[in-house]
């Protein structure tokens, strides 16, 4: 299990020992050491509610340790056995009353439909079909009703293959073996999660397959209905923590790759292009796999960057002449092929891409380079790659830093966005008058209410945006759902496109209203980095004022909360025409504006979309 960057080695050692042995005393010692860390290092309070059809409560310490390393301060609440609907669908249940940050359902076919699990061969095809449909209907209706009563994300586990199944030949060939029903049910779970952003899947069955025959312990299953084997509890806890990680930790955005002995075998400067190993034969095929994995990450929206101490002309020649190179130079959003130190190059790239060093994952076969990067830029996630390419491939495929629940279309577009950004910069440097430059972009803004489908993007921006963000409030998906459910509130998204391409959703405004007093309070107002400098905030502001005025509000309140990164918006509200309250200080400034009011749309932006100037739904 990985421990967070910044935790002392002594604590990391205790966590490693506990993960290795799974022993009660070792886990207790590790938890004790973590709880003694400063609260900032422990992370935020995270309450997980577990509903289940079998026993997990004997070893909550293992699950707690798994979650603590995310990091967070976990609190686990376990509901009564089998009362899943009672706990999840009644907003007065002890489970929902505890206001968990996430809910997890652990179940097995053995309890969901014991006849289908153990006596399937006594049923005819129609009965089996009906039994599986019953289970599926139950799960579907659980989801439909749950999202109406609760806002926390719900994680449904896939059903593992039966722990007690004989798995003999009979089971393999039999058309009525429970595995067919299990596959169908698991497929349904995945479809439910794809349809609803509040529903997620915890791949319990995937964990069980990886863990193999030792995943379950029939003796303890029958003695105390505790199927998960004690020896593998820490492995289970790690899998569970991995699937909750994106709720707590912002995913990394850039994979920084070294070249020699990472993307090909050999050293270009010594072996020459002809001496490099890359292709379909060992060991070139290992490097090829590394390249293919990097490309797969790129398709998911991860940016690739190349950091290599080499002569650029040699590198260009190698990329253009080597056959069987899946990666092309054009796949990299940023390149630094020179003789500068890698941490300086990385900072340079961070600035170019408008990202912090904590968005970077660094891969290098040289331990000197890894250590230097850790020392100079501790925020960068450094993988334990090595000169053995199989080890590098392993750490890369095991790296969970890029994990997200869904890849939004904005993510997939990111790589081409950065190419377009470079083209815009070029145009900007050619043109003298900044206003004239903006007119040449042919900007189009589109304002729309936050909808079910766009909630994840709104939450993503709330979580990641640092610079153009007046309050930096990191609302969760559940928070946004709650705010959106109140009709007096206004939640607007801004999408932007120009002649170089569509940038998707890049801005968000949240204003919380009180219809009784006529007072509207701006909770969040932000623009993603790639949309800054085009006056798009004025388009969003203009729509917000139009809507607030139409809804009958009489005053708008806003505040600026200073962080180390958001100084560029410290005078934003003045620029937008608000009056500053004299008593408010530089760290925390407060503003008011009388409504109805109007702010002109910038002349260089063509504003379109349902919603401009109309009242809220």
């Amino acid at each position, binding site marked *: 299990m990985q421990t967070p960057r910044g935790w002392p080695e002594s604590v990391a050692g205790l966590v490693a020992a506990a993960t290795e042995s799974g*022993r009660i005393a070792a886990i207790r010692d590790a938890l004790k050491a973590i709880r003694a860390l400063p609260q900032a290092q422990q992370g935020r309070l995270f309450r997980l509610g577990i509903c289940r059809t079998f*026993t997990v*409560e004997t070893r909550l310490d293992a699950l707690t340790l798994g979650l603590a390393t995310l990091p967070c301060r976990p609190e686990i609440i376990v509901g009564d056995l089998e009362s899943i609907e009672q706990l999840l669908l009644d907003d007065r249940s002890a489970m929902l009353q505890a206001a968990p940050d996430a809910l997890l359902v652990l179940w097995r076919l053995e309890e969901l439909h014991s006849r289908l699990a153990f006596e399937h061969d006594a049923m005819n095809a129609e009965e089996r079909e009906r039994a599986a449909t019953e289970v599926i209907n139950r799960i579907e209706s659980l989801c439909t009703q749950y999202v109406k009563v609760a806002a926390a994300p719900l994680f449904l586990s896939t059903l593992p293959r039966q722990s007690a199944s004989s798995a003999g030949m009979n089971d393999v060939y039999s058309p009525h073996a429970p595995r067919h029903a299990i596959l169908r049910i698991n497929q349904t779970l995945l479809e439910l999660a794809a349809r609803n952003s509040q529903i997620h899947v915890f791949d319990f069955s995937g964990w069980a397959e990886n863990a193999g025959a030792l995943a379950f312990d029939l*003796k303890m299953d029958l003695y*105390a209905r505790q199927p998960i084997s*004690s*020896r593998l509890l820490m492995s289970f806890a790690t899998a569970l923590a991995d699937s909750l990680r994106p709720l707590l930790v912002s995913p990394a955005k850039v994979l920084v790759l070294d070249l020699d002995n990472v993307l090909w075998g050999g050293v270009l400067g010594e072996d020459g292009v002809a001496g490099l190993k890359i292709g379909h034969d060992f060991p070139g095929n290992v490097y090829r796999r590394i390249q293919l994995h990097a490309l797969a990450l790129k398709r998911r929206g991860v940016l690739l960057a190349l950091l290599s101490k080499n002569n650029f002309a040699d590198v260009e020649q190698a990329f253009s002449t080597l056959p069987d190179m899946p990666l092309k130079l054009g796949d990299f959003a940023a390149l630094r092929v020179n003789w500068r130190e890698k941490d300086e190059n990385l900072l340079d790239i961070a600035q170019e891409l408008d990202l912090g060093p904590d968005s970077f994952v660094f891969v290098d076969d040289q331990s000197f380079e890894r250590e230097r990067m850790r020392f100079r830029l501790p925020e960068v996630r450094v993988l334990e790659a090595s000169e053995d390419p199989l080890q590098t491939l392993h750490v890369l495929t095991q790296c969970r830093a890029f994990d997200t629940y869904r890849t939004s279309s904005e993510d997939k577009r990111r790589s081409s966005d950065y190419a377009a950004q470079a083209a815009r910069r070029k145009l900007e440097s050619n043109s003298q008058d900044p206003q004239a430059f903006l007119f040449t972009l042919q900007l189009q803004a589109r304002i729309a209410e936050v909808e079910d489908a766009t909630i994840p993007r709104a939450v993503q921006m709330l979580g990641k945006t640092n610079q153009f963000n007046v309050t930096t409030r990191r609302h969760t998906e559940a928070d946004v759902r709650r705010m959106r459910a109140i009709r007096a509130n206004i939640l607007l998204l801004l999408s932007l496109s120009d002649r170089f391409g569509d940038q998707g959703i890049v801005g968000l405004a949240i204003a919380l209203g009180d219809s009784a007093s006529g007072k509207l309070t701006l909770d969040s107002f932000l623009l993603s980095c790639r949309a800054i400098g085009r006056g798009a905030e004025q388009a969003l502001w203009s729509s917000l004022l139009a809507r607030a005025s139409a809804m009958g509000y009489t005053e708008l309140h806003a505040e600026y909360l200073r962080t180390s990164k958001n100084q560029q918006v410290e005078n934003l509200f003045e620029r937008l025409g608000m009056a500053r309250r004299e008593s408010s200080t530089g760290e925390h400034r407060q503003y008011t504006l009388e409504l109805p009011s109007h702010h002109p749309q910038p002349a260089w932006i063509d504003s379109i979309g349902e919603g401009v100037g109309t009242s809220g739904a």
Partner: protein
Amino acid sequence: MVRSEEQLFRVFADVLNVEIASVTEALSPETFPNWDSLATVNLVAELEQAFGVQFDILEIVAFDNVGIVKSILMEKGVVF
């Protein structure tokens, strides 16, 4: 390999979350309410790992006090 009684008592202390000094051969689920069936699940896992043995179900249901557990371990060849 000769095992000390302390190793055995340490497992009970860890699982029941008590000081090792309060563990005796007479300690039983009757005298110690923390020792419920869920604690027995943990005892089995910890003892199997610590002493390299496997208990069968009949042995587990006979876990009536520390002394009995010790004698079951001795039957399995553990020397104290």
